[in-house]
C-alpha cells in the first residue's frame, strides 16, 4: 500500500514536470526579462545599481520573504540555544575563563569597531548607487560585533536594543510597502520621486528599504553571534 502511494505520487510529479516542461522551448533565447531590466531598469527605478533595482523594486516582495527567512533562522537558533539543559556541572564549567587577550588586540578591536560600523552603514546607505546593499552592510556590521566578542573577553551585548532595532526595521519595511499599496495600487510601489541620478536621495523608497534591511540583518546576525558566544558549553 505504502509503495503504491509513493509510486503514484512520484508518477504524478514526473507527469506534471513533463507536461509543464514540454511548453518550454529549450535552446532558444528566453532572456527577455533580463534584457528589459538592462534597458529600462535605471529609468524605471532611478537606481544606478541594477542589482538593487531588481532586488528592491521588481522583486521586492521576494526580498521581504528573504528577510523573513533570516529572521526565522535567528529566532530558531535563539530558542535552541536557550533551551534549558540539566543543571549539574554547568557551574564550574562556566567559571573556566579564557586568558585575556593582549592589550594590542583589545585596543585594536575597540579602535576598529566604529570604523567597521561606519563602513557597513555606508554600504547599505549607498546600496542603490554602488555595489552592496542591506544584506552586505548588515553582515559587515555583524562582523564588527564579532570582532568585539573575539577581542574582549568581558564584552556582552545587550539584547533589548537589538530586538527593538530589528522589530522597528521590519515594521518600516512593511509600512513602506503598505503606503505604496495605498498610493500606487500595489504592494511596495515606489511612490517617492526618483530624484537625480547618482545622488544619495534618489531612487524613491529604495534607500529607506535598504536601510531598514541593513539594520535588520545587522541586528539579526549580531544576535546570532552573541547567542553563540553566551550559550553554555556542552562539556
Amino acid at each position, binding site marked *: 500500500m505504502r509503495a503504491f502511494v509513493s509510486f503514484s505520487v512520484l508518477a504524478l510529479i514526473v507527469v506534471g514536470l513533463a507536461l509543464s516542461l514540454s511548453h518550454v522551448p529549450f535552446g532558444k533565447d528566453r532572456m527577455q526579462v533580463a534584457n528589459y531590466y538592462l534597458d529600462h531598469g535605471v529609468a524605471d527605478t532611478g537606481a544606478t545599481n541594477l542589482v538593487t533595482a531588481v532586488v528592491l523594486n521588481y522583486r521586492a516582495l521576494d526580498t521581504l520573504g528573504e528577510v523573513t527567512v533570516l529572521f526565522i533562522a535567528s529566532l530558531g537558533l535563539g530558542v535552541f540555544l536557550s533551551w534549558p539543559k540539566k543543571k549539574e556541572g554547568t557551574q564550574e564549567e562556566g567559571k573556566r575563563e579564557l586568558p585575556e587577550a593582549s592589550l594590542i588586540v583589545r585596543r585594536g578591536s575597540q579602535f576598529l569597531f566604529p570604523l567597521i560600523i561606519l563602513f557597513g552603514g555606508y554600504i547599505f546607505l549607498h546600496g542603490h548607487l554602488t555595489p552592496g546593499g542591506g*544584506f552586505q552592510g548588515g553582515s559587515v556590521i555583524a562582523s564588527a560585533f564579532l570582532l568585539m566578542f573575539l577581542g574582549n573577553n568581558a564584552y556582552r551585548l545587550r539584547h533589548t536594543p537589538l530586538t527593538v532595532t530589528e522589530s522597528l526595521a521590519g515594521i518600516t519595511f512593511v509600512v513602506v510597502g503598505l503606503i505604496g499599496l495605498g498610493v500606487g495600487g500595489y504592494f511596495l510601489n515606489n511612490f517617492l520621486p526618483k530624484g537625480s541620478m547618482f545622488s544619495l536621495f534618489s531612487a524613491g523608497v529604495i534607500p529607506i528599504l535598504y536601510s531598514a534591511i541593513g539594520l535588520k540583518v545587522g541586528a539579526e546576525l549580531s544576535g546570532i553571534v552573541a547567542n553563540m558566544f553566551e550559550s553554555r558549553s556542552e562539556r
Partner: protein
Amino acid sequence: MIYIAILTVAMLIAGLAAYFFRDLIAAVVACAAVSLIASVLFYLLQAPDVAMAEAAIGAGLTTAIFVIAIRKTGRYEK
C-alpha cells in the same frame, strides 16, 4: 581567464581538504578558504554584490560561528 582556472582548481583542492581533514577546526578553515576564493571569483566574474556578501558571510561570520560551535562540542571527528 587563466586566473579563473587557477582559482577554481585551488577552490577544488580546499574543498577536498575540508572533506578529508579529521581536525574540524582545520576543516572549517578550509571551508573559509573556499568561500574566500569564491568571493574573488565572483568579483572577477563581475558580480561585486555577491562577492561582498560571500566575503562577509561565507568567509567571516560562518567561520566564526562554526569555530564557536566546535569549541563548545568536540574538536576531532569520531
